[in-house]
């Protein structure tokens, strides 16, 4: 029997744990008594925003999650889609705050977490992507030099952390983004995406089936990591000492992660696994209660069997510890010895920490005493809030501003192509092993990555996209644009987009303005996904991204997967041959609101977003796909930030070839810098041009010839730029802004932390 003295659990205590009076009352109703310390800790972490999605749930429910490819939708460790008979798992998650506190370890452990999510589906992780957002670098000379230097150190640390962890576990990092805006100086975004594969019939779920089955804890020892939130519960005797022992930062152990990957997959392959669950937020408490609740069973957990890293840990600490590199596996008693022996052989720590019961309760014992006893499902069945929403008035003021294009096209173009936002991120992705597993057919640096799916003749294309600036000006429209851009990126490789996952980075949901941004963005994502035929397989919400009380730009990141037959030759973004004809699919309007040009050259974040017609987006993508798959395209590149000007310059910088452009327009500057949506740039051989134009016209998609590929320079109305100049700006600016003047990352190097 659990005993509690109600006096020790005053209102002050539960409130300091983040529980409201109503929530506490609800806990008492569930238990029929007062919770004890350990139970209070369990509810407080499980009912936190991070674990319970209590503010976002009612909105997320509206997202379309069904489609012909979807095998497992939202709610599991990762979404799973069917790609040519093989299960492909995908998931995107944030690790923003830990990465701000300690960029290297924060980003590293972020990779560890997302990999275990995918592993928990029984899938082998095969690719990582890293959409990142930081404040401006010193080179941009926007804002405070000291802050800019700190931003640079953050980029350096995050990229090193991803490199260190991802490379060590042997999962290639094949894509991502790095973008800079002032809003992220005090709150960078470190989102990470993982893709995994498994035979369809081997997809696992977090279910603790089978009364009497054994519960195994695999991997690292359990320490006092990540229990800051409930540390007020430390009993007075341990209090001070424990405080000193509580790490503020978790250190990644990629070696143990690699052992976990191989160990778990091996146990699954041997048929020894009934259910499997990763330990993430809320640690053991979450993994045990969730897997029991999912199966309608209960679980008895003996804390004495948990391998601890430190002595004197209290039950609530063991239960809520977020120590990294741990997995929970359910095995039948008859398989226990085999499972333990296999772990031993592989050098993976494993201990039996509990047993599945029919009580539907999570019973926790320590030293033979029951220290917690709660209905398993109640922990995951937290409160749900419909938080107040209010459209802020500044939105209208901002969007009514107008933006004019530059008079000096050359200066505008050079400034954009050499800005850290646009310039090549080679300096970062060269630090990532993007080749291991021999599956990377299209490497970083293109519009998306293309990967083999072993055992099939199908390949997948993957990209991450998000435009916080657009979402700040118009969260619903901006979110639609983000989905559309991802769709366009995949189409530009000839892939058919089939599903998305997402990570929604927002401010404090208790503020009606932020909640409005959130609701609008979710609505926009849902609308776009329905129109584009890409259901939402899952996602992650990161609230409370604020500096002081200023929220970051609302930043939904979309991770999208597309498919294509293996015989499609991906043309790539760079020109191929002099004399090829340059075609532009899609129509261009005078639309510079929220544009890269407005931000980087004019220093403005304002205006009305470009119009977006999702049916047109789909049609443009379809035309590009058809032309690419028919082998008609020599190059293909989507238009997004910086419009046609940047797309042309990139095609030159990547290939070393030039272009002779004739826009047949009175207003070439508008044509070049406008960020009108739904456009793709193609180059085709002279003989193929008419066929591509015909495909477009049959589909009702505007398409026109805008020039030819040439040598040496990028030339057109009002501009004549040396390709070498464009190329060095594009290839070297980011490395230079990071303090590595030669592109190779070979130079002096930087050190220092603060």
């Amino acid at each position: 029997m659990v005993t509690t003295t109600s006096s020790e659990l005053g209102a002050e205590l539960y409130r300091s744990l983040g529980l409201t009076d109503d929530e506490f009352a609800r806990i008492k109703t569930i238990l029929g008594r007062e919770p004890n310390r350990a139970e209070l800790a369990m509810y407080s972490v499980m009912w936190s925003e991070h674990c319970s999605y209590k503010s976002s749930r009612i909105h997320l429910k509206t997202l379309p999650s069904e489609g012909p490819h979807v095998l497992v939708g939202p709610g599991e460790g990762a979404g799973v889609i069917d790609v040519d008979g093989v299960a492909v798992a995908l998931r995107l998650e944030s690790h923003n705050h830990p990465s701000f506190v300690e960029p290297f370890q924060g980003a590293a452990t972020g990779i560890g977490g997302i990999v275990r999510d995918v592993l928990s589906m029984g899938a082998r992780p095969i690719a990582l992507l890293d959409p990142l957002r930081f404040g401006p670098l010193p080179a941009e000379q926007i804002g405070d030099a000291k802050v800019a230097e700190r931003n640079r150190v953050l980029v350096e640390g995050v990229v090193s952390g991803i490199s260190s962890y991802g490379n060590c576990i042997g999962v290639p990092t094949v894509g991502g983004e790095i973008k800079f805006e002032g809003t992220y100086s005090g709150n960078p975004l470190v989102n990470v995406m993982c893709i995994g594969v498994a035979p369809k019939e081997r997809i696992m779920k977090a279910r603790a089936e089978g009364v009497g089955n054994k519960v195994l804890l695999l991997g690292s020892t359990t320490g006092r990591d990540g229990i800051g939130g409930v540390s007020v519960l430390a009993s007075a005797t341990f209090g001070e000492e424990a405080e000193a022992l509580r790490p503020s930062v978790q250190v990644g152990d990629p070696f143990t992660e690699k052992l976990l990957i191989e160990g778990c997959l091996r146990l699954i392959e041997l048929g020894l696994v009934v259910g499997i669950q990763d330990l993430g937020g809320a640690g053991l408490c979450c993994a045990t209660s969730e897997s029991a609740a999912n199966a309608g069973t209960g679980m008895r957990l003996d804390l004495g069997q948990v391998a601890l890293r430190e002595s004197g840990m209290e039950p609530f600490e063991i239960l809520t510890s977020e120590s990294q590199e741990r997995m929970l596996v359910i095995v039948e008693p008859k398989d226990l010895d085999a499972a333990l022996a296999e772990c031993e052989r592989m050098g993976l720590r494993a201990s039996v920490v509990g047993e599945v019961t029919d009580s539907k309760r999570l019973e926790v014992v320590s030293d033979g005493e029951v220290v917690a006893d709660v209905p398993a499902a109640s922990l995951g069945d937290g409160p749900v809030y419909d938080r107040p929403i209010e459209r802020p008035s500044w939105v209208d003021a901002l969007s009514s501003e107008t933006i004019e294009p530059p008079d000096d096209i050359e200066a505008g173009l050079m400034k954009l192509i050499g800005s850290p936002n646009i310039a090549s991120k080679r300096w970062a992705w060269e630090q990532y092993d993007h080749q291991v597993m021999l599956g990377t057919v299209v490497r970083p640096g293109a519009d998306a990555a293309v990967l083999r799916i072993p055992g099939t003749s199908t390949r997948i294309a993957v990209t991450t996209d998000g435009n916080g600036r657009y979402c700040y000006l118009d969260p619903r429209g901006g979110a639609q644009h983000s989905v559309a851009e991802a769709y366009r990126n995949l189409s530009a490789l000839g892939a058919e987009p089939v599903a998305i996952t997402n990570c929604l980075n927002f401010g404090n949901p208790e503020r009606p303005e932020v909640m409005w941004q959130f609701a609008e963005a979710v609505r926009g994502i849902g609308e776009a996904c329905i129109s584009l035929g890409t259901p939402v397989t899952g996602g992650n919400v990161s609230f409370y991204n604020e500096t002081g009380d200023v929220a970051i730009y609302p930043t939904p990141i979309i991770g999208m997967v597309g498919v294509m037959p293996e015989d499609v030759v991906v043309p790539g973004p760079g020109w191929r041959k002099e004399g090829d004809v340059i075609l532009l699919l899609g129509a261009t309007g005078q639309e510079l609101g929220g544009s890269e040009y407005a931000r980087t050259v004019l220093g403005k974040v304002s205006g009305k977003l470009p119009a977006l017609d999702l049916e047109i987006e789909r049609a443009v993508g379809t035309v590009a796909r058809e032309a690419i798959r028919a082998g008609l395209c020599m190059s293909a590149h989507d238009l997004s930030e910086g419009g046609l000007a940047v797309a042309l310059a990139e095609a030159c910088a990547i290939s070393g070839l030039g272009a002779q452009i004739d826009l047949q327009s009175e207003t070439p500057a508008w044509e070049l810098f406008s960020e009108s949506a739904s456009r793709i740039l193609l180059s085709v051989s002279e003989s193929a041009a008419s066929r591509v134009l015909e495909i477009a016209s049959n589909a009702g998609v505007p398409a026109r010839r805008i020039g030819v590929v040439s040598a040496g320079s990028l030339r057109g109305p009002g501009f004549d730029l040396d390709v070498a100049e464009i190329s060095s700006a594009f290839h070297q600016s980011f490395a230079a802004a990071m303090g590595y003047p030669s592109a190779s990352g070979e130079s002096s190097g930087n050190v220092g932390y603060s």
Partner: protein
Amino acid sequence: MKFRFAVDVMPKKEISDPQGQTVERALPSLGYPGISQVRVGKRITLEVEADSEDAARDLLERASERVLSNPVIEEFEIEAAESSGAGR
């Protein structure tokens, strides 16, 4: 004047040290039993030009805090180098 120092930078007590743990788990099978509490850090030896040892130490103290160590996860200690021979 030049003063020689060594700066020892170790992971903080409360921070886990996977490297040390892995070495510790491996050592017995390599034939070295009975070794525990392994922690792996950095040792940096250097010379400081200053008017006095105190001034040198003072500068180094600041450099250690800001550059040579990462105060979020590491702690450091400065030794006058005479007490150590390695790497001189």
